[in-house]
């Protein structure tokens, strides 16, 4: 282990204590209110709550010696050990308490600390199932979801590091780099990496498609449409059954005002993948424009059947009904659309509502 690795491990343990202390304190305080601490267990829990982990460990060890069946003492001792970086001594008890504790709060705390310990010990593979179990047992828990995100991020980072270290010349390295750039909205850099990947492996599937998409996302210029089209066509040359590439070519023709060409590609995409909702919607919409309602309406009805929350499909179906004189059905679709377009209720919506209610000074 070099100095950097040692340093990063130290930081991981320090963060572990901060995580345990910061994330769980509220629930700890709720479960174990700070009372006059008479027994060693109560004194140990109090010390833990106040962040005096070494003292907590000592007191809780005393308590366990006095009563080996003292469950809170065992749990908090494991938590205190984890918080002081002694995960090796804590893991077995944390795992035991996570699986067996009848108190859901203690089980949750043990699970969270256990996963944290595995992350700190660089045993991400062991942390992953713990995170999955926590998510299943405590759905919608912000601490659990945060930890789960961290575990998966760590797993991704670990795998990426291994890949970059062991196969640096592989086209997959460039592909993955490109995909990472895409998540950062750096589409020019992503396109450059896809090009390198294609150069290394010209016959790899999906690279031209992704390059085409990055080009479209990188630039708004009409010229980009032609460049992207070339890539989607190259993808089709490698994989003639790629419905998504056919669909993208259709989109480009449509944006360029070539509806006949667009329709041909949309139809092809739908033939290749009959349950491709975007392709079915595109064909349906174009048939509405051509007043071919007998073909359009069943297609659009199929899309809303496949995806009941697909707003564009409901809108297109509404227009199809309207244009074909089926006004009652059109109104029904309008109602569905209005329902779908209502902003979801939630924390942020509530925040904005409060903001909206606060009318400026007139």
């Amino acid at each position, binding site marked *: 282990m070099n100095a950097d690795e040692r340093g990063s491990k130290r930081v991981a343990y320090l963060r572990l204590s901060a995580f345990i202390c910061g994330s769980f304190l509220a629930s700890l305080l709720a479960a174990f209110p700070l009372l006059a601490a008479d027994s060693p267990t109560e004194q140990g829990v109090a010390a833990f709550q106040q962040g005096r982990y070494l003292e907590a460990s000592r007191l809780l060890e005393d308590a366990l010696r006095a009563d080996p069946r003292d469950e809170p003492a065992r749990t908090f001792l494991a938590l205190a050990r984890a918080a002081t970086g002694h995960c090796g001594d804590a893991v077995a008890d944390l795992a035991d308490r996570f699986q067996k504790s009848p108190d859901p709060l203690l089980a949750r705390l043990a699970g969270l600390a256990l996963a944290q310990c595995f992350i700190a010990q660089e045993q991400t593979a062991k942390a992953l199932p713990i995170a999955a179990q926590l998510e299943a047992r405590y759905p919608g828990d912000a601490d659990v979801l945060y930890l789960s995100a961290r575990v998966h991020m760590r797993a991704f980072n670990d795998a990426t590091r291994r890949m970059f270290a062991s196969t640096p010349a592989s086209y997959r390295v460039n592909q993955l780099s490109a995909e990472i750039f895409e998540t950062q909205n750096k589409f020019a850099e992503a396109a450059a990496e896809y090009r390198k990947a294609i150069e290394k492996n010209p016959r790899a599937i999906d690279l031209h498609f992704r390059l085409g998409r990055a080009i479209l996302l990188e630039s708004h210029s009409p010229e980009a449409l032609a460049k992207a089209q070339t890539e989607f066509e190259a993808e089709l040359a490698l994989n003639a059954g790629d419905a998504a590439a056919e669909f993208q070519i259709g989109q480009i023709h449509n944006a360029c*005002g070539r509806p006949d060409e667009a329709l041909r590609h949309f139809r092809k995409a739908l033939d290749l993948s009959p349950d491709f909702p975007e392709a079915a919607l595109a064909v349906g919409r174009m048939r509405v*424009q051509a007043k071919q309602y007998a073909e359009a309406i069943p297609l659009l009805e199929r899309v809303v059947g496949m995806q009941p929350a697909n707003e564009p499909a409901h809108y297109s179906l509404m227009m199809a009904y*309207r244009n074909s004189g089926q006004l009652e059905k059109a109104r029904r679709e309008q109602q569905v659309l209005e329902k779908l377009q209502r902003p979801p209720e939630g924390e*942020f919506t509530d925040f904005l509502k409060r903001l909206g209610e606060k009318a400026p000074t*007139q």
Partner: protein
Amino acid sequence: MKAFAALFLLAAAQSAPDFRDIAKEAGLTASFPNGGEKTKEYIIETTGSGVAFIDYDNDGYPDIFVLSGDGGTNRMYHNDRNGRFTDVTASLGLTSSGWAEGVCAGDYDNDGYTDLFVTYWGRNRLYRNLGGQRFEDVTAKAGLTQDRVRYNTGCAFLDYDGDRHLDLFVANYLKFDFATTPKAGSNPYCFYRGMAVNCGPRGLPFETNLLYHNKGDGTFEDVSVKSGIAKANGHYSLAVLAQDVNDDGRPDIYVVGDQTAATLFINQGDGTFTEEAVMRGVAFDENGRELSGMGLASADYDGDGRLDIFRSDFSDERSLLYRNTGDGQFDDVTMAAGLARNTRFVNWGCAFLDFENSGWKGLVVVNGHVFPEVDRQNIDIHSRDHATLYRNTGKGTFEDISGEAGPAFAARHSARGLATADIDNDGTLEILANNQNEPPSLWKQSRPAAGHWLLLRLVGTRSNRSAIGARVAVTAGGRTQIDEVRSGGSYLSQNDLRLHFGLGAATRADSISVRWPSGAKTVVKDVDAGRVVTITEKGV
């Protein structure tokens, strides 16, 4: 010889126009402040302002009115008929201050002189034109004082109840106050592409639109609630298009909003309106998605005898073309019309105009971003950008010819309002644009448009004097073109009230038919091209 001339006209019509900015030579040198240049702290800095062509002194030549943001004054420039304009702001009594947003024109008192209404964040102003010599601020006298600070935007005069007196519609954007509006970056609606930017419109409180009824005695009454206009809440309204959408002889009102669905108020003929944008196909794009509507223009782009609608939208969105399929129903035909390729601009002022006099109206759109901070991102979306010019192919499609339309279409500005007029009555239209924190642009072609033309000035007698709402059909060379006299439109702007028709190779119009707002009809036969024609409604 005739055949040769026609061929020449057709060939000339296909060569690109050459637009040049003549603002400086014309004397339009004053700069119009509108918020920050490198950064804008508040949304109020992003939305101004409009422009107008208005012949205020009835000398037959359109004058220029340019609105200003805070720190400057609106300015009226008199058309000296020699290619130059003189600033007559002070002598006309139009010196002003504050955040002016939109302008619309109409002779609300039927005295023969066109009046002006200017919207503000703050106090709107109705300027009564006193014989072309001076404007009087009659806002309070007319009963148009508002009970609170409002963020008024687009406006239009229209005679919605057919009583010959022009009523007034005023769009409202949102509730804004410097003291209570959140600061940049303070909630998720105060970010753009990862940058903290001014907040809104999302997250800021909605405001309702206003309809004022002209009582015919120089005063107006707020009928927003009574008419049903105020029922439509939840829209950040900007541009207004008042015209007869469903061809029933009554003016309707179409309003586009920022990040919200557009609204279409259909005139019921009994003093009330019903909002029908969704079912009529003009609320959203083809995906049923709310876009950020900025400007509006209308024309019969495909020659089918119905007025279609173009709306300008935000970057990463498409500006939309809605084709009128009859009875006031519309289809989004943006893709099929070839207008879907430009998505990097925030589009604002827009107008249909026949810049070649071919008989087919092209389209001009000015651009400029609301977040100057976007320049830090080094992407292909810019704070200042060039305008876009589309040629109408006459086959239901448009082609972008901005790159070959002369230096005016290469210059980059953060433009907002746009209006068109034929400033020298030579049959070739000019374009005026309000550029934020710069002098305005006045674009003129270096050579006249090739085709023949007519410019129609309508005077109402049984209808409102400005003939706003009059529907005109011109038949020439085997085709019939239609248009309507409109107040307001574009982005918070006012085009010349006269109607321009390109006639292509036709040297005369076989007929000009006018359906007046009163319901009366006038038909004029065999009108020679190449001139301004005044048509007056037959009196009672």
